[in-house]
């Protein structure tokens, strides 16, 4: 991967991480987490671990759904 791309995807991941840390709203946090994952996936793919990328991108929403269960309760 050329450095420019690394910087861009890394930037996406960092934006996701920082905003997940700073945003106060739960839904906003979860969405930021999704942005973080979006930044991470290209790095996995770039190293050629496609199977890992598939599994990770399937597991990430499951974790989010788990968290949503309590977010829903905390929110209601």
């Amino acid at each position, binding site marked *: 991967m050329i450095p420019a791309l690394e910087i861009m995807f890394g930037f996406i991941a960092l934006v996701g991480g920082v905003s997940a840390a700073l945003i106060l709203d739960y839904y906003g946090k979860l969405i930021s987490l999704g942005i973080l994952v979006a930044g991470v996936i290209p790095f996995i793919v770039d190293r050629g671990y496609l199977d*890992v990328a598939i599994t990770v991108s399937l*597991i990430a929403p499951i974790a989010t759904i*788990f968290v949503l269960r309590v977010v829903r309760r905390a929110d209601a």
Partner: protein
Amino acid sequence: MEATFILGLAILLIGVLAVAFVRPKTYVARLINLEIPGWGLLLVMLAYDETLALLTFIAVTAISTFVIVRLMEWRDESC
């Protein structure tokens, strides 16, 4: 010294700070923030090509998230 590794460490650091000094100080916020350092660690593992460990780590993190979620549900139900 590659980008993946540095990025991983940065996210790990951000994540740990986010969990340690969580805002707002609720269980749910902390639980969500807990995922951030996990992704940082994932990138560190990726930098060293530890894929099997990485996969297991992600699966197990999701499971432990679920364990805590379940605990919080019990709590909400009983309080």
